[in-house]
């Protein structure tokens, strides 16, 4: 028998939380006790039984507590920059891509464009246009999700062996994650563009920027220790970045940290100046560090039986997929949605490809769209207002297991970023994770056409819940 930790029954409770008939809430309020009402609505169609099975699972709470604490305990340090061939063992002909697994025949325009450009970049074909046949045949090339190799890639997320990667490490576990270097905005490979300018920039990144950053990061690590990406992310939220669609402060802080080592590097002043201009001119440069930092956190929360925490949200331009801690490496996929947002130039909704990229790993970790309140400068992406941003961040807390106290949001009175998406809570409330995203043109080669907000397809959460419930039942 357990002794009660609670106040005696002759003492009134501090408050009453009511879910259901409002008359009971009214009756409690009439007795001068604080009442907190739940705005209860029926759960997503067909989920009511699975919700009860998972909620009654005796190991769920412990599993979720563990998943969340492992995730929040991770410290993501930038420890190196090196080619994918070296750190991921990628062989010629092997390509990584964003999102859940997909073959060439179902690949969207921007993913195809990025793969074609990468094939030319790797010298597999002379002209990117010739690469289509190579990928269609599939005999000399192979595709694999970044997520299957401890990596993440924004938009198309294509990684080939010669691309240089940021290397993030959690000192406690020694685990590592990887992400390519950010190319900037507009016509770039990750948005599916593969023109000569794109390939020229990729070669410069391979020949100049990558080695220079590798040298500078190594020197910085040697002189001052690794660069703490987790801490920079915390600073960014204080400085108007949400670390998905706004990385301006993060980029400048990185540049500040690397500047002495860049200046002292073995490269010529002209090349260093080029690198400064490139990084400083690309407000999204830090995104490619934010993403693997988030993945490092979420990977720590993986593979805990009974946990309903989402550990990955990723899109390949065709499918949107999630992975959940309690269901291992299984992907739950549905059709990627079109973002609602604003378009560059003459582009409109008809030009946009469905949602693409691994960058939703930021929302999975509690920033990006979840931390919209921290970045009022970009709330107008969907004609939104600052109050909308505050409400969005608060609404996301309705579907998360906890908050990240390392990432407080000042305008929310320093509440931590809502962290650890709970599949059960999504199915109960129907509130879908809010993702800030860029939009790629749907035709290969076009590049970026806009930016906006998007949600996952609702169906994948009940699908994940059904698998969690099946595993709960199997455990008995």
């Amino acid at each position, binding site marked *: *028998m*357990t*002794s*009660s*930790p*609670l106040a*005696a*029954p*002759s003492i*009134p*409770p*501090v*408050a*009453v*939380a*009511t*879910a*259901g008939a409002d*008359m*009971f*809430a009214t*009756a*409690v309020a*009439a007795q001068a*006790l*604080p009442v*907190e*009402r*739940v*705005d*209860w609505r*029926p759960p997503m169609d067909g989920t*009511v*039984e699975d*919700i*009860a099975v998972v*909620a*009654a699972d*005796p190991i769920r709470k412990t599993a979720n507590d563990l998943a969340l604490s492992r995730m929040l305990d991770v410290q993501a340090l930038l420890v190196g920059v090196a080619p994918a061939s070296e750190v991921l063992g990628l062989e010629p002909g092997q390509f990584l891509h964003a999102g859940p697994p997909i073959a060439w025949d179902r690949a969207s325009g921007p993913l195809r464009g990025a793969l074609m450009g990468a094939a030319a970049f790797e010298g597999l074909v002379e002209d990117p246009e010739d690469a289509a046949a190579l990928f269609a045949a599939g005999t000399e090339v192979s595709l694999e999700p970044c997520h299957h190799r401890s990596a993440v890639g924004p938009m198309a997320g294509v990684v080939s062996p010669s691309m240089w990667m940021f290397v993030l490490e959690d000192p406690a576990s020694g685990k590592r994650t990887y992400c390519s270097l950010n190319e900037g905005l*507009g016509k770039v490979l990750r948005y599916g563009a593969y023109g000569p300018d794109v390939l020229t920039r990729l070669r410069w990144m391979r020949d100049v920027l990558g080695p220079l950053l590798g040298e500078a990061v190594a020197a910085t690590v040697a002189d001052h220790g690794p660069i703490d990406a987790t801490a920079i992310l915390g600073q960014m939220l204080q400085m108007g970045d949400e670390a998905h669609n706004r990385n301006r402060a993060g980029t400048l802080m990185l540049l500040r940290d690397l500047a002495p080592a860049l200046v002292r590097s073995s490269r010529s002043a002209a090349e260093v100046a080029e690198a400064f201009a490139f990084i400083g001119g690309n407000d999204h440069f830090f995104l490619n560090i934010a993403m693997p930092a988030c993945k490092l956190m979420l990977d720590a929360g993986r593979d805990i039986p009974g946990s309903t925490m989402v550990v990955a949200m990723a899109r390949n331009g065709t499918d949107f997929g999630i992975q959940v801690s309690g269901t291992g490496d299984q992907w739950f996929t549905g059709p990627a949605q079109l973002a609602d947002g*604003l*378009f560059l*130039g*003459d582009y409109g909704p008809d030009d946009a490809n469905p949602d693409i990229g691994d960058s939703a790993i930021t929302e999975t970790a509690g920033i990006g769209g979840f931390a919209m309140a921290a970045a009022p*400068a970009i*709330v*107008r992406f969907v004609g939104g*207002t*600052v*109050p909308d941003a*505050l*409400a969005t961040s*608060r609404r996301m807390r*309705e579907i998360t297991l906890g908050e990240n106290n390392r990432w407080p949001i000042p305008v929310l009175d320093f509440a931590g970023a809502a962290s650890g998406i709970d599949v*059960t*809570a999504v199915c*109960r*409330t129907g*509130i879908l994770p809010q993702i800030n995203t860029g939009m790629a043109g749907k035709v290969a080669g076009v590049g970026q056409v*806009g930016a906006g907000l998007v949600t996952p397809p609702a169906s994948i959460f009940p699908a994940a819940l059904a698998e969690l419930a099946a595993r709960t039942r199997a455990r008995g």
Partner: protein
Amino acid sequence: MSAEHVEIRAGAYADSVALLQVSRDVAATPGVTAAQVAMATELNLEVLATMGFTLPPASPNDMVVALRLEDETALAAALAAVDAALAAARKGDPGGGQVTVPARTTASALRRAGGGLALVSVPGASALVEAMDALDAGCDVMIFSDNVPLEQELAMKRIARQRGLLVMGPDCGTAVVGGVGLGFANTVAPGKVGIVAASGTGCQQVLALLDAAGVGVAAALGVGGRDLSAAVGGLSSLTALDRLDADPSVEHILVISKPPAPEVAAALEEYAGGLGTPVRFALLGAGQPDLTAQVEALLGDLGVAAPTWPTWGEPAVGSGEGGALRGLFVGGTLCDEAMLLAAEELGPIRSNIPLSPELALDASLLSPGHMMIDFGDDGLTRGRAHPMIDPTLRLEHLARVAADAETSVVLLDVVLGHGAEDDPAAGLAPAIAAARAARTDRGGPPLPVVVACVGTAADPQGLTRQAEALVAAGAEVHLSNAAATRRAIALATGGTR
């Protein structure tokens, strides 16, 4: 004839996202075929060039307004739209959105409240997950919801028992915690009696009688009607007993239940024997004392003399011939208690909650002979509110029963307290008057109506006011359901009073 307008606004600034929206708004203006308002950055100048605009020299700190129009006449309106959109972008949306969001789960509500107790009355199939939110937050929960699957009740009660937390319910109608009434609960003075109740209206009857005897209540913890079943095994009753035993202000404990599983009752009694606080069991069943007798015994334990239980109105007058007793209840335990008492004197009582299965009523709820109906039973509350909130069904049936010549007496209950109708007599008194009049229209004496009015002096509806309104309609009113039932039995067996 289409026209183009390009102007550089030196030094003007708005952020890129605001400008994307300005561009969209301006492009939607009648007469405008394309619009781009942007800072003159390299990227934006490229975009403008691909749109076919020819641009004068500009720096990244200048704003470009580039418009393509159906004809020159559209220019003034287009520029006005640019200015309006820029002004709106600076001010933001004056309409503003909501900055707060409602709690959508019990977990969220408890987080906002800083803990406390959860009260769940969502549909039964969704009750478990809301209750688990409370248990996960280290909080007790009361579940009013009915139709919760038995295995779910068992699952959450097992988890709660492990964590030392209390699940009151499911199908728990009544609780009083620290003087606060939850669900259907009466207003009682604080005192030294602690109650564990697997019966909502049974608990309310006890609260009403103790209040009339001037005895206060420390707490009344509901546990749900199935808690003392063999399947559930009294899991919540055990925790409720622990809680009350540990509470220094509780000196006597009373356990109330509808007929329990004998082995569960025995186990509970054994457990209670090991506690420091004396525990009395008021378990309904054939041959067992009624609730009023149990309360009188408890008063004896407390050294308080049992009062004469309040009644209102003149004793009802019957025809002297007797006939069928028809009981129409909103309280399940009150109906149970009345059936147990009446069956001893009158024989079989048909019911929707029969004492034995062969006495079950069909869906018409009509049959010859003695009959008692619980309008609060799950089977009659699907898709409608509990009869303590919505009396329509019972009022309709009262008219039907009164029209039946075989009916010799009508027995009713009225349950007051938080959660119940604001003024139950307002609907019931006219229905009683009509029922009595229906009989006199045919030349007979008025139909006797006996009412058990369960409430306390401080209840929001006013016990005396309710009782007097019922008396004015011709009813004989008792505080004790057992006393009311005995009067009805007497009238049904031919006693005139």
